[in-house]
Structures are given as C-alpha cells and as structure tokens.
C-alpha cells in the first residue's frame, strides 16, 4: 500500500510537471504582451513593465523561474489585473466555485441514485421509461442551453429566483440546478445498469427467498453493492463539473474560477490561463488518486499493488 501510494504520488507530480511545462511553452508561442496602449509607451516604460512580469529574461530562465515559483505556491502575475498574483485571483474565486460544484455534485448524485434505483427496480415499466428519458436528456442537453433556459423561465419570466449575481443562497439555486443535470444523468445511468445486474444475482434471490421486504432488499443488499463502483465516477463527474462551471458561472455571473477562466481566455491573460490550467489539473489528479484509495478501502477485492497493472 505504501509503495503504491508513493508511486502514485510520483506520477501525480510528474503529470503536473508535464502539464506546467506544456502550458508554459504553448503560452510562450502565442503573441501578446501585458502592455496596453503599446504605441504610447516610451522604450524605458516598456522595459519597466516587461521587467515587472519577468519577461525581459530569456525564455529558459522564465521557465525555471515559473516552475520554481509553483513549488512556492506562486503562479505569476495576471496580465489583466496588473499587480494581482494569479494564485490570489484563484484563491479569492475558489469559494463560489467550490460551493456550486459541491451542491451540484450532492444533488446530482443523490437524485441520480434515486432515479437509477427506481429505473432498475421497476424495470420496463413507465417509471423506468421516465427515469431513462430524464437521464438521457440530462446527457443530451448541454449545460449552457439548460442554464439559459432556467435563467429565462425560472428567473426572468416567473421571477422565482434571482436572474444573476452572487448574494446569498437563493442565488445559488439556478446555477446549481444547471450544473447538477449532467452528474444526475451520469449517476442515474450508472446506477440503473449496475442495479439491474445486482438484482438478478443469487444473493438477492436468497434475500427474497428469506421473505425480506422489497425495500429491505433494495436498501440493504442491492443499493449498497451498487454504490461501490459509483466511487469511480467521482473523477469524471468532477471533470464534467469543471467544464460546466465555465459556462454556467458566466451565464449567472457567479464570481468563480470558471468565469475568470473564460474571461482570461478572451483577453489573452496568459499567466491566469496557465494558473487555472495547473489548478484544474492538480484538482483532478488529487481526486483521481483519492478515488483509487477509497475504492481499495471499501472494496477489498480491488488490490492496490505497486507493480504495473
């Protein structure tokens, strides 16, 4: 187990290192400087601004400074907001994103499990069909379309919820719903498939033969075993939430990381793009590692070994 962990952490660091390197050189290939109104500046002013961002040094030196900075928790200065550190920018915007992501994950997974379980228990009935339609729609309707529709019909037209902004719990409801659709659909599909298998296994037959109630069978036997492989969904769901948050935060003007990321992309704020890229990758890598560890703990059949596969 220890050997396995060390190995995984080594690969995690290697991955992040490669991501940082690739991002750095991709960004260096691109045109654009932090200089605004370039024509009006005198050469000495230009030099001063470039020096502030460390752009006066050769590229290889910038690279080592950047990589070294990451270890110290620094991701450089933002082009867009002069003098603001990227790490500060990310840190100050993490709250709303994490809250939205967390809420969407909980709602999506809980309702997804219910939907999937209903579909599996009442297989091939109208309940199953409705559950399937909801989950397939959740996959087919892109989050940005759903967000716009929710904003218009539940926000603007009926006035039930605030249209946009970030001033309290009420403001989180619509973005959470828009984000939760995709985890809900994924979970429901996953649970349904898995439970159909589980429900036809021998130990469920036995439980039925013992005279357990239907609810008892599902709750105590089927659901628990179906939930174990659910753990592997955490990674993909988190990645889907990151994707979703970029547009959903923008549509509802939530001051989160996703919104900042899109803005940075549109104004070519390279240090921020790099910073957020590395942050997202690190988050996903850690989540994937945790997933594997948790999976190994709750399902003893999975053995974590240090060698290859």
């Amino acid at each position, binding site marked *: 187990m220890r050997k396995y962990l060390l190995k995984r952490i080594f*690969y*995690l660091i*290697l*991955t992040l290192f*490669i*991501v940082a390197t*690739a*991002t750095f050189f*991709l960004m260096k*290939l*691109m045109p654009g400087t932090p200089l605004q109104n370039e024509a009006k500046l005198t050469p000495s002013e230009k030099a001063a601004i470039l020096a502030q961002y460390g752009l006066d040094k050769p590229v290889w030196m910038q690279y080592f400074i950047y990589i070294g900075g990451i270890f110290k928790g620094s991701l450089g200065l933002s082009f867009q907001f002069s003098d603001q550190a990227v790490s500060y920018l990310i840190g100050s915007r993490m709250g709303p994103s994490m809250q939205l992501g967390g809420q969407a994950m909980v709602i999506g997974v809980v309702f997804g499990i219910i939907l999937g379980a209903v579909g599996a228990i009442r297989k091939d009935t109208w309940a199953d069909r409705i559950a399937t339609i909801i989950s*397939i*729609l959740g*996959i*087919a*309707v*892109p989050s*940005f*379309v759903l967000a*716009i529709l929710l904003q*218009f019909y539940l926000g*603007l037209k009926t006035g039930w919820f605030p249209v946009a902004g970030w001033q309290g719990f009420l403001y989180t409801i619509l973005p959470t719903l828009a984000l939760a659709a995709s985890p809900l659909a994924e979970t429901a599909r996953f649970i349904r*498939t898995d439970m*159909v298998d589980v429900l036809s296994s021998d130990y469920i037959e036995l439980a039925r033969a013992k005279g357990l109630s239907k609810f008892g069978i599902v709750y105590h036997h089927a659901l628990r075993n179906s939930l174990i492989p659910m753990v592997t969904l955490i990674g993909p769901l988190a*990645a889907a939430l*990151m*994707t979703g948050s*970029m*547009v959903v935060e*923008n549509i509802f003007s939530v001051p989160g990381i996703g919104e900042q*990321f*899109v803005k940075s*992309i*549109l104004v*070519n704020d390279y240090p921020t*793009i790099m910073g957020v*890229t590395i942050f*997202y*990758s690190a988050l*996903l*890598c850690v989540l*994937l590692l945790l997933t594997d560890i948790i999976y190994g703990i709750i399902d003893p059949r999975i053995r974590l070994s240090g060698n*290859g*596969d």
Partner: protein
Amino acid sequence: MADNPKEYQIQPGDFAPLDKQAGPDNEHIAAPSLTFGQDVWRRLKSNKTAFTSFIILVLLFLMAFGGRAIYHQNPNEQAPRYANLPPKIPGVNLPGFNGHIKQSGQDVDAYAQAGAGKDVHYILGTDYLGRDLLARIMYGTRISLEIALIATLIDLGIGVTFGIISGWKGGRVDLFMQRIIEILSSVPSLVVMVLMATAFQKTGMASIIAALALINWTTMARLTRAQTLQLKNQDFILAARTLGESAPKIAWKHLLPNLSSVIIIQTMFTIPNAIFFEAFLSYIGIGISSPQASLGTLINDGQKNFQFLPYQMWYPAIVLIILMLAFNLLGDGMRDAFDPKSKR
C-alpha cells in the same frame, strides 16, 4: 439362416439407397445464414428506439449536407431590412409560424412592420443581421458534424493504432505507453482543448479538430489495448504467427475485424462528445468564428435576443439536442446489437 442370427451375413445387395427428397432433411438450415453484419443489422432494426434514432440521424445528415439543393437560401446573405423576423410559413396560421410577434403585449405582424412584400417569408425566421435562420442552422449543423466526424476519425486512427501496438508489444513498451495515457487522461479534457484552441488562435475548424482529436483518443486506446491483450493469446493468432505472418498483417487481418465491434460502439459515443465540446468551445467564443457558423455559435448568437425572440436560440438548440440524443440512443442500441450478451 434366419434361425441362427450369428450366421447372418450382410451383403452389399441388402442395402438400397433412400430417396433423398422423400424423408425429412435433418441437415437443412431453415433460416438463411447471416453474416455478423447482417445479424447486427437485424438486431438493431428490432430495437425501435435505436432504429428511430438512426432514421433521424440519416435525415439530419441529409439536411446538413444536401439541404441546400432543395433550400437555396445563402446562409451568409445579410438583409438588414429583414433582421429579427419571426418564423413564417405561408398558409400556416399557427402562433409561432405566422410571422406575428408580441411587442409590449400586442400581437404585431413583424413582416408588415418591416415592410416586407407578400412573397417574403422565412420558415424559421431571421437572425439579427437578417440572415435566414433555417439556412444557417443547416450550415451550422454541417460544420458541427464535419468537425465531429473528422475529429472522431483522427481519434480512431490514433487510438486504435496506439492500443494495438501497446497491447501487442507488451512489456516495457506497453508500460511506457500506458503511462502516457494515464498522464493525458488525468488532465481535464476541457483544459487541453482550451489550451489548443487558444494556441492556434482563430484558425477555425483546424484548431478545434486538433483539440478534439488530442484528448478523445485515450479511451479508444484503452479499449483496443484491453481487447488486443485478450485476443493475442488466442489460437487463431498463434496459428497466424506460426505460419509466419508479419505483425502488421496480423493486426490488419486478424485483430481489426475482431476489434471492430468495440471500435464502432466507442465511436458512437465519441461523436456526440465531439459535437458537445465543439458547441461548447464555439459557445464561449474560442471555436468557430464568423462567417463560419456551428450550432454552438448559433446558440450563442440566439441567446442575446432570447428574451424577445426566443426562436433564435430554441431552433439551433433543438437541433443540437436531437443530434446528441440520437447519437447516444443509437450508441446504446449498437452496444446491445453487437453484444447481445450484455443485455441491459
């Protein structure tokens, strides 16, 4: 002779040939023998949802690639005079299709207001520059499909080659190649695509295709590798090797046909994924740029006027949703058709 069975001697003359046509033929195969492909097709046809999806997809493809042969409007022709006109189908008097629109609570004939003659009508209305929305949707669907299909084809090439080599070679090569996949797949795909799209700034289709191709192949590579590992120890591969067949030829002649079902099923899920990400990138403004249009840019354009002219976003969004639905449902159906054992 008959008294003593032991002495019974069988003579060739005791046998008479039976009439072949007379008796029931046990060897007769009643149903025509089906090839694998025919079998899959038969199972797919019996799956109503999947077959409907298939028909819908065929229609959408026809509309996207051949629609202009019937509907001659130019998707890029601007007519500022006729900007933001609602849908109007001549002879149809249904709300939403009669060219009327609600303005400050009143029902107004938008076409009369714009001073359009009797012969002017746009089936799905016009956008903010007076471009025909139906023509633009057909055009946008074509671009979306082209991007998704080309990207998927590249994915397929890279993924299958990578997977077969990795699985076939085994050992160190395999270990190294698996690490590459592991590293690539622990980077959020969205981030890779945003980086690629920013890196190739505004070069349109090519950059999106490159971005999509770069991230989606890992799943395909994993699946092919796993299958190859199983197949390579089977006897027919061993036989081919013993006969001195070269590795590329074995891969082409023996592995690929056996991998085809896995590849086709995975492709059916890669395409909607590519469509989604293309729409996503175009929507946030780093994908296709004008004068080209894709479903994502159309939705983005339509969204600006959603409050007053909801049809401008609804129609492209509906096409996108139907496309995603049909591909996903057909994919599910194909999985069942190719692998009846995994009946879900």
